[in-house]
């Protein structure tokens, strides 16, 4: 017998975001309203009903994956803080975008950690930078700045010490350039510091350290272990200067014997204010900053940002999408970047396992070859700054000539297509097979990776894990297929998935993903030949294009996972030259939410390996 009640629920779970919004409007009259601002999508939810609505979105509408949660300050336009959530279905499709607004004074919203645990760090970030209190959050404290910092710096009325002007380029540099001064000349302290007006040195206490240890429980506490041995809790601090934390990352671990009770990640040691600086830059000025997010895969970061701004530009009348050749070059760069990143990631995972430097040196050798190509195309090895809105910066060169990597004082000179074809068809496949042969069957690698750091599929989704971390747990979720962009729909490739969700599966996923990338690249080569000479940008390129008002969330599958850019253009009906809000949904940052749950009960020696298998980059984690 067919259950009639179940049927509409099933269609709800596959419907479009518009259907979902209509369902929410009907189910919660008064509490949910459509967002009617021009260029904005989704619904605005009454904070009192936020948790209930979120639960409905997750359970009834099937949006089981919370991609991004971030705050926006609308100072001067309604004077409220707005929390923006983007939820997706793991099966694919576009986002359901819902928002909740609160006053700037006593900003308070209910926490959604109970619905999606992936909201944990993102809400802490909103608390840190915007000062929104989340009721019901289990561990609400500052995450990027230190405890005791004055104010919430992402608010629009918070001015930094080197504040000069609202928008760039600064007046002091423009138009005659005569009045250029260095920012520190203006500051009495000669440093980038600003103290509150009622600051009293006598009452100064540094609580930044002690607040970190609060969660770990530093009081001596006796435990009886399984075999009757009595131990007490030992708190170990790892980082921020530690060779195995992949940068300036810190963990505070409380141990029971050798097993981990709690692990608390501490970050912000590389928080360099991308988002605050990004709000004053023009749209194009942010492009080189995106390079410095995940500095191993700058091309992928460029692509995500270009896609986000292009989505906004598409709202305007004079937009033309990127040309076909531009898309081909973009995919070429993005996939090469994936190989670069995975080579590095596997090399350093082996480092963490104790194979000190040899695998990493092997991998780096191949990486350098790809960097040569990046340098020839964009002018820089790592910080490529290559994509533009509507295309790319420059066509790939005819020949690769590298002064920098001279051999026996001879400039190396190759035909680019020949170089690429040799690299993609011969060199890299051979190397990856060789690497695979050396490592995968290795006894030590298998012993230390199989069954360690297990993350079950449901947990991975709930924790908003992305990239190889999510796919290693057996969830076939890849933005290239879930919400295709660029020319990925016409390319033939598979999504690599693991089975058990342990370190070994993540390693294997990365290894196989490199092969899939090569498969894509082999399809790209003939397309590059075919489109030779075609334009690489569409429309006219402007240094400071006017972007129509609205919001957009552009996301790409970066090597480390889903990289999203939430860009808001607001405040000028004719279009703005600077983003009102520029937020980066960083895969490394949100993947770290899973680190605590994954390491619980594991041995202390496995912590660095588990961290290495997440593959974080601190530039992106801390932004």
């Amino acid at each position, binding site marked *: 017998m067919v259950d009639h009640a179940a049927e509409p629920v099933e269609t709800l779970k596959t419907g479009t975001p518009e259907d979902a919004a209509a369902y929410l409007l009907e189910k919660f009259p008064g509490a949910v309203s459509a967002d009617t601002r021009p260029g904005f999508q989704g619904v605005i939810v009454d904070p009192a009903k936020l948790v209930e609505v979120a639960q409905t979105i997750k359970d009834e509408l099937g949006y089981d994956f919370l991609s991004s949660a971030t705050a926006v300050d609308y100072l001067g336009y309604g004077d409220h803080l707005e929390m923006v959530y983007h939820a997706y279905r793991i099966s694919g499709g576009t986002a359901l975008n819902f928002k909740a607004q609160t006053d700037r004074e006593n900003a308070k919203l209910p926490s959604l950690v109970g619905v999606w645990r992936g909201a944990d760090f993102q809400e802490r970030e909103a608390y840190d930078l915007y000062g929104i209190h989340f009721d019901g959050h289990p561990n609400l404290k500052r995450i990027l700045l230190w405890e005791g910092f004055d104010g919430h710096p992402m608010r629009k009325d918070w001015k930094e010490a080197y504040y000069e002007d609202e928008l760039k380029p600064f007046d002091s540099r423009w138009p005659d350039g005569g009045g250029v001064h260095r920012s520190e000349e203006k500051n009495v302290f000669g440093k980038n510091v600003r103290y509150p007006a009622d600051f009293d040195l006598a009452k100064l206490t540094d609580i930044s350290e002690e607040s970190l240890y609060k969660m770990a429980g530093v009081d001596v506490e006796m435990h009886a272990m399984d075999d009757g041995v009595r131990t007490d809790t030992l708190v170990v601090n790892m980082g921020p200067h530690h060779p195995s934390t992949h940068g300036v990352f810190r963990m505070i671990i409380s141990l029971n014997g050798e097993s981990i009770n709690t692990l608390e990640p501490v970050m912000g040691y590389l928080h*360099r*204010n991308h988002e605050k600086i990004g709000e004053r830059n023009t749209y194009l000025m942010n492009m080189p900053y995106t390079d410095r997010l995940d500095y191993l895969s700058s091309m992928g970061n460029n692509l995500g940002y270009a896609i986000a701004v292009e989505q906004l530009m598409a709202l305007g009348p004079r937009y033309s999408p990127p040309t076909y050749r531009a898309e081909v070059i973009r995919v070429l760069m993005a996939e090469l970047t994936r190989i670069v990143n995975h080579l590095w990631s596997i090399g350093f995972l082996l480092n963490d396992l104790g194979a000190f430097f040899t695998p990493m040196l092997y991998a780096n050798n191949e990486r350098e070859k790809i960097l040569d190509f990046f340098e020839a195309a964009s002018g820089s090895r790592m910080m490529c700054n290559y994509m533009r809105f509507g295309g790319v910066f420059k066509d790939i060169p005819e020949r690769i000539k590298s002064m920098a990597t001279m051999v026996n004082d001879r400039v190396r000179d190759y035909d680019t297509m020949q170089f690429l074809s040799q690299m993609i068809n011969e060199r890299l496949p051979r190397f990856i097979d060789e690497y695979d042969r050396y490592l995968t069957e290795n006894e030590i690698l298998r012993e230390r990776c199989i069954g360690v750091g297990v993350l079950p599929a449901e947990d991975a989704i709930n924790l908003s894990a992305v990239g190889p971390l999510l796919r290693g747990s057996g969830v076939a979720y890849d933005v290239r297929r879930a919400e295709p962009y660029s020319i990925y729909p016409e390319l033939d490739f598979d999504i690599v998935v693991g089975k058990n969700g342990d370190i070994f599966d993540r390693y294997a996923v990365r290894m196989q993903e490199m092969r899939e990338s090569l498969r894509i690249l082999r399809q790209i080569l003939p397309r590059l030949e075919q489109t030779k000479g075609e334009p690489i940008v569409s429309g006219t390129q402007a240094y400071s294009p006017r972007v129509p008002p609205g919001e957009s969330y552009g996301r790409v599958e970066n090597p480390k996972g889903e990289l999203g850019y939430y860009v808001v253009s607001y405040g000028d009906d004719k279009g703005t030259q600077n983003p009102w809000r520029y937020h980066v949904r960083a895969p490394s940052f949100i993947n770290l939410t899973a680190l605590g749950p994954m390491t619980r009960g594991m041995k202390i020696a496995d912590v660095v390996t588990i961290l290495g298998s997440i593959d974080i980059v601190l530039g992106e984690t801390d932004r």
Partner: protein
Amino acid sequence: MSSKELDLKHVHDTEFPLPAEMQGNVAVTSLSRIYNWSRRSSMWPMLFGLACCAIEMIGTAASRFDLSRFGMEVMRATPRQSDLMIVSGTVTKKMIVPIVRLYNQMPEPKYILAMGACASGGGPFKEGYNVVSGIDKYLPVDVYVPGCPPTPQALLYGLIALQKKIDGQSLANLDDVPWYGVGPSEPAPIPILGPDIIDPRQMDLIRRQAELAARGEPTYVRELPPVVKKVKAVPSKVTKAAAAAPAEIAEDPRREEILKRRLAALARKRARDAAKAN
């Protein structure tokens, strides 16, 4: 270390004449020279990366660029065993505290190389609220390497520049570097994380500024000197006279004689070269 490095000629540093049969066996040199030579040839950097530049630093240490050619491949993860701190990336206010601690833990002699735009002066992130605009705001820097990030070649150049700098240091001059002086040197004061980062050396200034603020007087922002527009220089009588001067020099009476002498010297040199070639 290559055999060339061990060649005693490298260490030999005096006018003292050595008999021909002893050359290659004996070197007469100064203590500074020996100290500096051994230090610069085994400069151990700390294994410590901050941001993007750290990746290029690893690239420099890896096979293609190979830092070990300069005796620097031994990267130590502990400050106690390192001589050189390569500050490779953006220094944030939260990170400067551990960095100063690490620096204080390094044994002397110790050097700092500021790698990249951020470590040298804040770089693209200079205006950021959590960014220290240059490590030199807190610690003494020996070599700055520009770039964002510097290429491995640039880093190698910076390291060679540091070696040259070490070569020039002297035991005789006690003010030259602190570790050649008398007694232990002062540790760098560790910044405090308050409402913003607090440099202990600026406590007095902060207190004075707070008093000014309590009285309601404008503080914190310093007035900048008025912008002086560059005015095209009008040539004065003196500069005009100076411009006219070369003509007089051309009529120097000794000119003929000097020219003759130089031509003669050139002819002699050519003859010598020709004889050598034959």
